[in-house]
């Protein structure tokens, strides 16, 4: 046994143990991308750099064996900077999107590509379920949303964007709302003031999290501006009523026709565990509620929506006047996270948002690559005119146009996880033109996107270990090196028995399993 000191704590490890393994044994996370448990160390990504306390030098911990008396530091400022820099260098060549641009552009960050894929396969109910995870009023928004998502759609720069908004409306109207199974009640009470899009959304997501919500509105009926400001032709009342009903059916206690005055507000603070203010633009709001204000409205923390009174959260037009209902709806979803965190005694931070790799605009020659998993069809317009919405055939046809810009490895990408953890800035080393994106789809179960590759060599080493006839290899060297199948054989030839293993081992989304 060998004794080493890691972050000033001694640990005994077997002879031959790498420093990384020794640290992991102590529960210290050493980031790594090129390491694979079935393989020898390779020393490529350099994320596992740690410091030799005695000489202050950094070394890759995956490849150095622990020796008697070694003293290691795993996470000082210099090491963090090293890892951040390594990640930023890798990100500068990693060309691809994590979340699709439409999802990032959507103020509610709805998982649009997944919605599209489900529609395309006729799974309308599942699709609605996906939509409702982020948007409480899809049928309503499907009629009034200016669709910032479509402005960001990659297809827009080379063709017409996917008609996302109408697709969402379609599932909102034609999909059956998911069976509501609210979480077990946690015994907390929250009052939501104002039953416009923001308040409704907040009430919905809070209730689903197991919080008893009381929703107050000065009007008898919920809906706020949606009910009063938008004419019937655009938003028929029955559509609005139906979606509000779904929300209220989750168990929200709706108290209509109740304008809350300041005294009531103060007593509510005592009666409820938290308050969500969503009463729409009223200039005297902040004074009325004795909260700090910005020139535009109530001042809140931009991530958590927590106001100067820690028990009060504010969303929607009380923050600043906006006609963008989807923003209010999104805030309603996000504030539910903050309130929950607050009620759990955590620091309210809002909905966790991960790091996103983004490559910018799609260009013409890349469009052909993206079309490998899409269709080269023009944008679909409802046969019966814009207001009528898609028929199911039209919806399927249009949904197929989605380019699947979102990464398959979105929840399983070490590069993304570490980039998030070390707050890497992908643009830091944007010093020259990016690579042109290609997609290799000729395989039954995996997809290979070479420009997402970070050259860790795990796939090359795994296919060698498992004696694939062709396998993967390095082609070229240096910055221009690419990983591919020798002799330009098809992906199908390169990855046979090892396909799934390789896809699972890829630390990014370069090689990933196709959706089932």
């Amino acid at each position, binding site marked *: 046994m060998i004794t080493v000191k890691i972050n000033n704590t001694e640990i005994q490890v077997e002879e031959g143990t790498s420093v990384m393994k020794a640290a992991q044994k102590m529960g210290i996370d050493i980031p790594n991308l090129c390491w694979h448990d079935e393989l020898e160390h390779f020393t490529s990504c350099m994320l596992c750099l740690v410091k030799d306390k005695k000489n202050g030098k950094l070394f890759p911990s995956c490849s*150095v064996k622990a020796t008697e008396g070694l003293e290691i530091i795993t996470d000082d400022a210099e090491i963090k900077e090293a890892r951040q820099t390594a990640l930023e260098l890798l990100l500068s060549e990693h060309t691809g999107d994590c979340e699709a641009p439409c999802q990032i552009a959507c103020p509610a960050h709805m998982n649009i590509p997944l919605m599209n894929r489900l529609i395309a396969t006729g799974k309308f109910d599942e699709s609605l379920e996906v939509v409702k995870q982020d948007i409480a009023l899809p049928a309503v928004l499907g009629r009034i949303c200016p669709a910032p998502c479509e402005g960001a759609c990659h297809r827009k720069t080379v063709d017409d964007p996917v008609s996302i908004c109408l697709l969402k409306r379609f599932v909102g109207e034609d999909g059956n709302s998911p069976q509501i199974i609210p979480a077990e009640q946690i015994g907390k009470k929250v009052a939501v003031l104002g039953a416009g899009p923001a308040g409704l959304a907040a009430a919905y997501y809070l209730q689903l999290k197991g919080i008893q919500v009381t929703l107050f509105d000065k009007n008898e009926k919920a809906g706020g501006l949606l009910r009063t400001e938008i004419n019937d032709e655009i938003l028929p009342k029955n559509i609005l009523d139906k979606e509000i009903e779904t929300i209220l059916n989750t168990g929200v206690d709706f108290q209509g026709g109740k304008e809350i005055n300041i005294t009531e507000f103060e007593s509510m603070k005592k009666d409820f565990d938290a308050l969500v203010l969503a009463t729409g633009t009223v200039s005297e709001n902040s004074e009325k509620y004795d909260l700090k204000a910005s020139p535009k409205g109530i001042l809140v923390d931009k991530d958590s929506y927590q106001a100067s009174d820690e028990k009060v959260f504010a969303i929607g037009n009380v923050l600043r006047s906006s006609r963008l209902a989807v923003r209010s709806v999104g805030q309603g979803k996000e504030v539910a996270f903050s309130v929950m965190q607050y009620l759990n005694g955590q620091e309210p931070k809002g909905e966790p948002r991960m790091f996103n790799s983004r490559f910018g605009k799609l260009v013409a020659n890349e469009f052909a690559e993206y079309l490998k998993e899409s269709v080269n069809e023009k944008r679909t317009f409802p046969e019966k005119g814009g207001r009528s919405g898609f028929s199911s055939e039209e919806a399927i046809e249009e949904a197929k146009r989605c380019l699947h810009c979102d990464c398959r490895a979105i929840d399983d990408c070490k590069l993304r996880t570490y980039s998030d953890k070390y707050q890497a800035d992908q643009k830091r080393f944007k010093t020259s033109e990016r690579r042109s994106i290609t997609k290799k789809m000729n395989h039954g179960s995996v997809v290979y996107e070479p420009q997402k590759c970070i050259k860790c060599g795990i796939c090359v080493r795994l296919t060698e270990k498992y004696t694939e006839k062709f396998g993967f290899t390095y082609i070229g060297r240096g910055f221009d090196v690419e990983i591919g199948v020798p002799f330009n054989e098809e992906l199908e030839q390169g990855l046979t028995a090892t396909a799934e293993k390789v896809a699972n081992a890829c630390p990014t989304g370069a090689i990933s399993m196709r959706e089932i």
Partner: protein
Amino acid sequence: MTNNFQNIDQLIQEKGFTKKSLIPILQAIQKEYNYLPEDVLRYVAEKTSITASDIIGVASFYSQFRLQPVGEHMVKVCVGTACHVKGAVQVYDAFRRELKLPEGVNTEESGKYTLEKVSCLGCCTLAPVVQIDNITYGHVATDQVGQIITDFESNKGNKNPKKARKADGSEIKGEIRIGLGSCCVASGSEEIREEVESVVNESGLRVHLKHVGCVGMCHQVPLVEVVPNEGEPTLYAKVKPEDVKNIVESHFEAPGFFTKTKNKLLHLVEDIQTDRNWDGIERYEISMREKPVASFLGKQIPIATEYRGMINPLDINEYKKRGGFTALKKVIESMSPDEVIREVKDSGIRGRGGAGFPTGIKWELVKKQKNDTKYLICNGDEGDPGAFMDRMLLESYPYRVIEGILIAAFAAEISHGYLYIRAEYPLAVKRIREALKICKENNLLGGNILGTDFGFELMIYEGAGAFVCGEESALMASIEGKRGFPRIRPPFPAESGLWGYPTLVNNTETFAQISYILREGSEKFKNIGEGKSTGTKVFALAGKVARGGLIEVPMGISIKQVIEEIGGGIANGRKFKAVQIGGPSGGCIPAEHADTPINYESLSEMGAMMGSGGLVVLDDTDCMVDIARYFLSFTQEESCGKCTFCRVGTKRMLDILDNITKGKGKQGDIEDLEKLAEWTKKGSLCGLGKTAPNPVLSTLKYFRDEYEAHINGVCPTGKCTELITYSVNDNCIGCTKCVQKCPVDAIPFTPHEKHSIDTELCIKCDSCRAACPVDAIDVK
């Protein structure tokens, strides 16, 4: 398809069926097909245990290998350091125009010529250099590329008939020595040799014809030295074939003279060979005793290059006559391995490969390994684009290198070794191969060397073109038949090297100095040099110095002494600006620090390093940002791509430098560059990445103002083409010379009037400035 590959079957049979034979197999295939055809490679994968993945991985790693067919003839434009500072890029561009190559295409439409850049042809003193197949053209100017192609066309079919020499040894009147180092050969010494042989044979003269290795006077090549039995020897520099007859006749009286026909024939040949106005160099006569040459050699101490210019590289008897192999004999007959190691340790010699690890300690580490199998590797993978001493040592002193290897093998108790020689050094490979054969015949290799128990097998391993393979762990990966990926050290090769066995890796130059130490004693060696840097160091002196070439100087000599006393100062009366030492891993030391002594420590302190031994002198016309960019583009290109900081870090640094030299630099770029350089140094796995930022950091340290000027849109020396414009000043006499030279008709034909340059059309090829007789072209 399998029926058509009997040749490949045979080749595999010869080279072997396993991964370690991969590189030799690929080299043989390329020799046969001029590239690596895919069906042949697939066949190899089928017939051997080598996988498709290995084959493509290796074939695409080494720059020697081509996976696409190329033209009939290869036009190689040297872009080594010395060539770069003398305008190689412009020459390359001129060839692109001449061969009408569209962007991204390197082979002429007709398939006749393929153009490529090569990192160093090792003829730095002839810079800029272009090689077409086996013909080398030196001092190439951009407006000469057309003539070069014409010259090549007219010469390529010209197979020189082999001329037999008379074996009659009587009446020897003297000796004629012809330099046959690469510089000499490149400058045409082979033609001279043939000419001398022809003149001698036809005249019936009785003289020794002697081929000598590199004399080190590469700026004067080709060299012919006439040593009559009586009287002073005379050295002729820059000899042309047509001079040979005169030279020979002026020293020796021929018995019977040329017949008329023969004379005619000779003159015909002369006509062809002198029809080369690209040549433009004058032949002149100099004596060894004349000052410039004497001082060129005088300040130096030849140890690795002992008896330079006096011995025939392959004449083993002559090597023996001049003390060769006495050290080996002494060592294996009367010393124990420990005594040898002690002597080497006492001498203080440190690795000449650059890092300077004490040689004796390394030997001791390997000796201590109790393992039946141990390997020795002589690292001759010299990759610095501005250095060629390993090549010169291997070509000119093969026996000295072998002797050093044998002594090391004896001391560290090793029985097998490899001489790893860079692929681009065919002459070195040829000479060493021959030398190994002769050594075997003389019982200096193989079993029971010189009748003792000591036996040693030494093989040649030809590299395949990867700078990173100069790094020992990458070099070993390469011998093992893999991509040249370095691996982390420890374990060091002494403990676990080639195929996991203890391995001693030393540089060629280190081995070349060993026999001296053992023969003359460590004390004598130690007295040369200073402090912790003992002995001598060979440098390739090139760039803007008046006299370039290979020099061997005592450690501790100052930069100034090298440049002024050996190099003869700066050429063309320009001002000394800086010296780049150590190539891509080294740095620039500015003129104000010219007193810096050359030793391991002081160079490192200055931000340079001993490195490869390249010593490129820069004058006031050289742009330091361009120099930094040049070296970084080299290392970036040569990065193996394994670790993040080197693969991406060098690329991003280069991006920033590209932007700066193209006038796209912005505030903050310099700081970003500095930060990135720091991290690339700290975070890279091997020596290549760890030292790649040195040229950038050292120029930033001493010439930061030049970087700042570029950010502000000005290249102070007018080197960065995108930051400059060409114009005509009032000196213009309207001679139209520039008009005639301009390849893009950017200068209107206006005789006797002041010319003008259309900056829209101008491609900044510099032809006009070179052509102008009155300095009327301004570059701003």
